[in-house]
């Protein structure tokens, strides 16, 4: 810069007072290394995590949690919920009869609720309604709730359904 103008960025010339020097640990190269490396690491994690997670043992194949309900816990008209092989199961008592259902709505798989007042299963998601046999009454469904097998032994109701696994 012959006419004495300060050269702010140039590597040569200009007065030392104006010259910008990157600190040694903050260079353009280092920035790109971190940015590209970081993006690569995040991408690798986003691809790798689901793959590793997929290979884990699904809960329902692990040590089986079988649902058991003592008969005295069942009240007339009320529903008792529990987990069996990773599924949400509801047991209802109507008079002398006991019925167990898989709580998964036949529409898009939300968990229904048992409404003891109206004696209906109601789905909070899209308002499907099922009667106390699990048959569809109204809403976006044309299939029943899945009945679940159980046995009663020594005053305890034991869910026995394997859902087709093992």
């Amino acid at each position, binding site marked *: 810069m012959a006419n004495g103008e300060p050269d702010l960025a140039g590597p040569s010339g200009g007065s030392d007072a104006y010259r910008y020097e990157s600190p040694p640990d903050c260079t353009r190269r280092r920035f790109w290394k971190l940015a590209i490396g970081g993006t690569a690491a995040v991408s690798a994690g986003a691809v790798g*995590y*689901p*793959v590793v*997670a*997929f*290979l*884990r043992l*699904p*809960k*329902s*194949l692990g040590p089986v949690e079988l649902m058991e309900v003592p008969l005295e816990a069942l009240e007339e008209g009320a529903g008792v919920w529990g987990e069996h092989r*990773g599924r949400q199961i509801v047991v209802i008592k109507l008079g002398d009869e006991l019925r167990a259902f898989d709580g998964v709505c036949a529409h898009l*798989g939300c968990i229904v609720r048992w409404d003891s007042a109206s004696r209906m299963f109601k789905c909070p998601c899209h308002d499907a309604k099922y009667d106390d046999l699990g048959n569809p009454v109204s809403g976006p469904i044309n299939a029943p709730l899945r009945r679940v097998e159980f046995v009663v032994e020594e005053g305890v109701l034991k869910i026995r359904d394997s*859902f*087709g*696994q093992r």
Partner: protein
Amino acid sequence: MTDSESKQPPKRPLRLLPLVKVHLPPLVVPRSLGWAGCFGGLALVQFTIQIYTGILLLIYYKADPMRAWDSVTFIKSNVPMGWLIQRVHTVSAKMMIALVLMHMARVAYYRIYRHPREWHWISGVILLSLTTFMGFTGYLLPWTNLSYWAASVGTEIPTAVPVVGDGIATWLRRGPNVSGETLGFFFAMHVAVIPALIAGVMGMHFIMIRRTGISKPL
């Protein structure tokens, strides 16, 4: 080369790194290669995604009409991250077909299919067919209502061919109608036969491109 060299080739250890290195930068591509030039490569990325998600799905998938649907539901709702892997496989299938078509549209628009690249185009058309066959055979696997009818309609198409058409349809369906036998057949095609063919044709496709180089505008 001197005489002694040609008689006694120097013993060198097999070095794999140079084989990889020739495919890494600085690999010269024409400056004119715009963003549309990435579709073929992206289709390859989709294919690798299909392979690893497909292998993961195979862990739980059961090619049996009584259990196929349950096994896919099991993947989606019980296997950790299964909902994601299953959906990625389904969505990537569509994306792969779209990307192959976009790749072909670029090649057609710039008329890259002309000599000396006619075999690039021919192998590309084969790859497109194989990819749609992957989509078609895969679609039956979850054994839903839609899958069943899609396979029924799809296997109906060859009946338009005179004389042999009905025979081809029956052969594809493994019987007069789509059944559990069809499922087994499509499954074998989907996970073994067609992927192997795609990998082979893709390899040839890439070798051809290496031979001619990437095309430059005239």
